[in-house]
Each structure stands twice: as C-alpha cells, then as structure tokens.
C-alpha cells in the first residue's frame, strides 16, 4: 500500500506547478554556481603559476583545491601569497577582494551557499503544503474512507515527497558536474570522489531535515497559508538569524582585538627595533631580527588563541541551526574550513622559522640551499573527528524529531 502512495505522490508532484518552479530555481542556481566557481578556480590556478616562488625566494603559497568549487570557505586566505620578510615578519600579497570591495558585500555563491540557503528554502516550502493541500482538496477524506492505516499514508507521503525533492537536485548537480567539471578537465583523484560522495550525502541529509520539518509543520497547521507562513518563519530563523548572530554573540564573551590593532603593534615593533639599532651607532653586531621575530610571534600567538576561543564558542552557539552545521561540515570536508586555515598558518610559521637562519643577498633571495615551502591539504582521515560527529548528529536529529512527532501528530490528525 505504501508503494501505491509513493507512486501517486511522485506522479502528483512531478506534474504540479510547484515542482516546475522549484526545478527551474534549483537548476538555474546550482549550475550558475558551479559554472562561476569552476571559472574562478581556473583563474586562481593561473594566479598560482604566476606567484609560484622561484628556487630560493622566501614565499609561502599553496595551490587552490578543486573542492573550493563546492565549498569556497576560506580558500582565498589559504591560497594567498605569504612573503617572509626581514625579522620573520609575514607579509601578504593583495587579493581581489581588496580591490573590488563589492565582493565583501555578499557571500561567495559557491555550491554550499546555494544548498545552504536556496535548496533548504525549496525543501521546506515544498513540504509545507503536502498534507494541507490534500485536506483542502477533500482527497484526504476520500482516502481515509477506505481501510488505510494512518502510518502507511504518512510514510508514503514522506518517501514520495522526498524523492520528488531530490530528483531535480541530483539531476542539476550531475549536469553541473559533467558539463563544468569533467569537460573542463579539473584534476580529480580517486580519493576526491569519495570526498565528493560524502559531500553529496551531507547535502541529502541536510535537505531531509528541512523536508521533514516542513512536513511536520504541514501536519500540525490548520490551513495551507498558515503552514507556508510558519515554515518560512522557521526557515528564516534557522538559516539567517541563528548562524549570523552566533559570531557576534561569541565576540561578547571574549573581547578579541581588531586586526588593525595587531597590525599597528607589529609595525611599531619593527620600527622601534630598527630605530634603536641605527641610533645606537651600529655597536650591536647585527640587526636585532631575533627580538622582532620573537615579539611578533608573541602577539600572533595571543591573537590566534583568542580567535580559536571565539570560534569554538561561536561554533557551539550556531550549531543549533543545521545551516551552520552544514557549513562547518562541508568546509572542513573540502579542506577550505577554519581548521584547515589554522593548520596552513602553523605550516607558514614553521617555514618562517626555517627561513630565519638563512641570510638573503642584495635583492632578497636567500643564499644557500633551503627547501622551498610545500603544503599538502589534510587527508580525508583527519576529517572524521568528534566535532564532525556532533554536527552530523544534529543534522540527523533535525530529521528524526519532526518525523517522530509528525508520526504521532498524524495519528490524531483531523481528516475532515
């Protein structure tokens, strides 16, 4: 009997106006995102070739990961050019965000953004009128005038609805993958495909959460208008309000100095050291690089600890909403997340220590043989840790709780 309901649900939804609208929106947004991000990835790859350090230049840079197409995250920071200058200071090359300020206004439209906001919008709206429409149409009365168990119908409705939701997504993503990535010869290894599969699995779990939420709201609300209205409120709070206020709220607990203050302290250390050296009429043997380096390290250390503290609190606060859970999960999975950036920075600092004890010739190149900077993104095995488990379990919870509550609510559902 459930099979019959699933078939009917599929048939009914696929020909509905709602499905057409949803399919267009998903197809348009997913594919433009993939198209744009692949182009951007290619441009950044060329950029890397330009900036690649020659044999003994003191530069630290790594190539962009193809996964930045799926979750751009902080890849711009990771792929930036870091030059180790006098006294162990780390200067950064300029970025496109710096010139065209408009980039800072809106999130980068990568696949994660589209899934996080637009697909969850479609999922909860699609599910929000599945039950109420049948009730207003009178077909619910007709169905239950036959000997049909309530769970059979609600389960059939859940599975049928979810499949109709997932078909357009999988089609659009496949279309996007084929046209923009495989044809564009983006270098993908085998382990990357596993990572891609996990990414898609997370997406499906995330959308199943919003789908069951929408279905539950449809069961408990009186009319279609009310259920659509209420699901929009839930969507706005989960996707916009909680994730975006988490960061600000976390800052209240730990007062973290602004980046400009750190910059000013750093330059003051440098200027003070040079000034004292010069005015002491060259008595000291060498320019006090050691002091500069050591003081810089102290400031940076202090700032990074504070930043990690803020991040962990913000992560706890925002992890109530599935949207930020998905962001943390996918950015960590695609090696463009917060954890990856910290790891990259520790590598750069280690490289700096190594560069320190080489002296440079007139135009800045290092003398003697030294191993240039090299960095490999963290392997897949690193990804599976406790924090990931926490986020993933919250996503699963967003599926289970509405389904269980919906199951019991539907038993008492007034069919009239």
């Amino acid at each position: 009997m459930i099979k019959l309901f699933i078939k009917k649900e599929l048939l009914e939804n696929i020909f509905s106006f709602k499905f057409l609208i949803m399919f267009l929106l998903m197809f348009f947004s997913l594919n433009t995102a993939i198209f744009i991000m692949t182009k951007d990835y290619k441009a950044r790859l060329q950029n890397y070739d330009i900036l690649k350090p020659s044999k003994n230049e003191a530069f630290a840079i790594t190539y962009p990961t193809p996964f930045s197409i799926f979750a751009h995250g902080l890849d711009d920071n990771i792929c930036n050019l870091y030059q180790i200058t006098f006294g162990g200071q780390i200067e950064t090359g300029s970025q496109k965000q710096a010139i065209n300020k408009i980039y800072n206004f809106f999130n980068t439209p990568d696949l994660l953004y589209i899934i996080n906001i637009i697909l969850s919008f479609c999922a909860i709206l699609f599910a929000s009128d599945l039950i109420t429409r049948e009730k207003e149409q009178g077909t619910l009365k007709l169905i239950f005038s036959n000997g049909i168990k309530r769970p059979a119908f609600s389960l059939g409705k859940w599975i049928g609805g979810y499949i109709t939701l997932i078909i357009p997504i999988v089609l659009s993503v496949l279309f996007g993958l084929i046209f923009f990535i495989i044809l564009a010869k983006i270098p993908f290894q085998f382990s990357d495909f596993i990572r891609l599969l996990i990414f898609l699995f997370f997406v499906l779990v995330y959308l199943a959460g919003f789908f069951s939420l929408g279905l539950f709201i449809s069961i408990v609300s009186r009319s279609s208008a009310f259920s659509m209205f209420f699901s929009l409120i839930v969507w706005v709070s989960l996707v916009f309000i909680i994730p975006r206020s988490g960061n600000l709220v976390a800052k209240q607990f730990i007062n973290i100095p602004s980046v400009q203050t750190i910059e000013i302290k750093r330059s003051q250390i440098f200027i003070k050291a040079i000034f004292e050296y010069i005015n002491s009429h060259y008595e000291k043997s060498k320019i006090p690089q050691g002091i500069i380096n050591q003081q810089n390290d102290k400031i940076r250390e202090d700032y990074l600890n504070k930043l990690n503290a803020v991040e962990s609190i913000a992560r706890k606060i925002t992890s109530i909403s599935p949207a930020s859970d998905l962001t943390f999960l996918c950015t960590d999975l695609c090696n463009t997340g917060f954890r990856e950036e910290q790891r990259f920075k520790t590598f750069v600092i280690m490289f700096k220590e190594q560069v320190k004890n080489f002296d440079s010739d007139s135009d800045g190149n290092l003398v003697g043989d030294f191993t240039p900077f090299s960095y490999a993104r963290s392997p897949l095995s690193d990804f599976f840790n406790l924090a990931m488990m926490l986020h993933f379990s919250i996503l699963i919870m967003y599926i289970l709780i509405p389904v269980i509550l919906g199951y019991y609510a539907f038993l008492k559902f007034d069919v009239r």
Partner: protein
Amino acid sequence: MFKELLIKELADKIFDKRFLWFTILCMFTLLITESVLLNDYKTERNDYNLRLLTQKEFIDKYAHENRIGDMLDIQRPPAKLRLFAAGISSDMEVNTFTNNSFNVLFPPIDFVLIITVIYSLIAILFSHNSFSGESENGTLRLILSNQVSRVKLTITKFLGGMLSIIISLIISLAIGVIYILMDNSISLDSNDLMALGLIFLLSVFYISIFYLVGMICSAFTGSSSSSVLLSLFIWAVFTLTIPNLSPWVASQLYRVPSINKFEKEVKIIKGIERDDLGRNLCKEVYEKYPDLLNIIKSAKDEKLLLAKLENNIGLKNEYVAFQKEIANAWDKANAIQSAKSENISVDFFSKVDRQIALTKEISCISPVADFSYAVSDMAGSGIHAEAYFKDIKKNFEVSLWQFVEARVAKIKKTDVMYDVNKYIDIKDRPEFSFREENVSGRFSATLSYCIVLLVFNALLYLTLIRQFNRMKV
C-alpha cells in the same frame, strides 16, 4: 469611497494573526542584533581610541623622517550607523596574515538583512493573495459590482497593504533606535537621525517592490497557491542568487588581469629592468672618464680613495662631476621605468574601475544589491564612505608632510649631522580628526541607487495596472 477601501485593506492586514507574528519576530531579531552590534561598536571604538593613543605615544618617542609614513597609519573611526548597516566590516579592509576569517564564513546580521530577507518575505506573504484571495471568495466581484474602478482598487490595495507593513517597520525600527538612545555612551546627532530617516525611506521603497511583485503574481495567476509560489520564486532569484553572482559575472564578462600578475610586472619593471637600464647608462659615463675609473679600481677602500682625491683638486671636481653623471644616469633610468610602470598601473586601475562600474550595473538589476549599497553608504560603512575617508586622509597627509618637511628644514639649518633616521620632535604636529560626511553628501552619493529603486517601483506599478485590467474576475 477611497477611504473605505483603504481602511478595509489596512484593517484586514493588521487584524491578521500573521501580522502580529511577523512584527514580534522582527522586533525580537532587531533587538538582539542592536544589542549585540552596540557592544560590538563600543569595543571597536575603544579599540580605535587605544590605537590612536599607542600611535601617538610611539610617534612622540620614536618619530624620524624615514618611517614617519609607516608610523602614522591614519585609521578610520567606526561609523556610528554601522549598528544598522554593517557594510564592509573593518576587519575585512585589512589584508594581513593574522585576520579574523570567521566573518568570511558567517557575515554578521544587521538591519539591512532584516529588511532584505524578512520584510521582503512579509511583503510577499501579505500581497500574494491580494486579488486572487478576493476573487476566490467572491468579494472581488462584489466590490467591482459597485462604482469602483480597477485603478482605484489597485491603489487602495497597494497603499493599505504597504501602510500595515510600514507600521510594523516603524515599531521594530523605533525599538532599535530607542534601545540605542537609552545607552548614553553613544549619542546620535541630527546628522545620524536624518540618515536613519533616509534609510527608513529607502527600506519602504525596497519593500514596496516586493509588495508589487506579490500583487502582480496574484493578478496574473488568479489562484493564491500558484501566485505565492511564483512570487517566492521571483523573490528567491532576486534576493538570494543575483546579488551574490553579480561581482563574479562581471569578472567573467570583463576580464581584468589578476592583481598579483600586475604587481609582478611592476616589480620586474622597477627591479631588474631598471638595474640593467641603469648599468648600461653608467657604462656610457664610464667611457667618458677612463683614467678616473682605474684610480677608483686601484683604491683599496673608500678612506684611501678620499685621501687621494683630497690633494688633487682637478681630480676631485672631475670625480664630483663623475658622481653627478652617474646619479642622473640612475635618475634617468628610474624616470623611464617609473613612467612605464605608471602607465601600466594607470591602465590596470582604469580596467579595475571599469570592472567595478560594470559590477554595480549588473547588480543594479537586483533591488537587494541597490538597497545594500545605498544603505551602507548612507550609514557610512559602504564603498563611497571609504572613498570619502581616503580623500580626507590624503589631504591630511599632504599637510602633515609639509609640516614635517618644514620641521626637518629647520633642524637641518642647526644640526649639520642630521640624517634621515635621527629622532625629530613633532609633538605639536596637526591632529587628524575625521567627521563623517554630512547627510546631503551621502545622499548625493546614493542618489543613483535610489533612482534605480524608484524606477523599479514605477515599472512594477505599471505592469500591475495592465495585469489587473486583464484579470478575469
């Protein structure tokens, strides 16, 4: 007749339970954001003052001509109205190794987000059934069976609905402003309040766009269920996708070489090329003074060379002339190269400006982008505000340099042994003070965006009237 229709529409919306729910949601969100942003602003202001202080002390102790520029990095104070429009956060402006990357993953929530996402949703949910709902329950025919022309009905429906949303907007905005005024550590002067008023007006025009979209869909489809889907589709495309895509699409349409490529070229021009040019210019000079050359070569070290030149006047001024020619050879090389790099950078930055202009044009098709740029500029945290600050900063730096040069010239007269790294006392230097642009300046900057928003409203209203006239009642 007009009044009744208006009052009925207003009453119909205000007594609707959804109105209550939404106003509470907005009030609650705005209160949280304001309280959090206020603390954020206060910490940032203290941070800014601390910076000024450390800078001042440092300069008073270690000022020397060579590094005055680095020491005196003039900072922009956080704009007061950043409480309402976060715009470009200060951390984003600086491109450094230790940066706060958390803002990149989760941009902060502010009043602009509440308007662009929550209030535009309210507008659509209130307006999607304005015609289809009434035609489904038969009241549209009943109204039109009276002496009510269709145009009048559209006007009253639009004004009535918008009035109800404006009331809810006033309530939530008032709560935000009162919360800020209560806190005495920050004082909003007339300039800010006027800017806030203009921001309020801009948000009303923005919300009315989506209210009209909802009405058009309702007149077009005639059934509430499909009209809400159509209007939410349009909302999702214009609010969630187009603004984010516009900078990236612009960069595809109008290719600009990456900044790193440009910097590398400039480095080469100023670096290796300049040295080669300089060396072969010096070679010509060397041929002119062959004998002087071998003297220099034979002298072991500088002191010996100086002693030799002292006693032979002819050789000395020849050596001086030689030095001068070498110097201007290098200057010539420098001039040529810097001219070359100059026109490359002019060409590069004109391309960048054209790309920024193109981005703005593309994003103008989405009201969200217009609205965000306009409000952030109005609040003093946008692109224009930054450019305004840079001009003031440049003028101040010019005046500062004049002051420093005058001081250095004075010192040079008295102290022969002066060199660039010697401490100079410039405690009485001009103090940098920055007052945000007055409202009329900000308004003229955002004028183009306001006009685009108004054009949107006008076009949508015309399509609404045409669509409703064709609607089968």
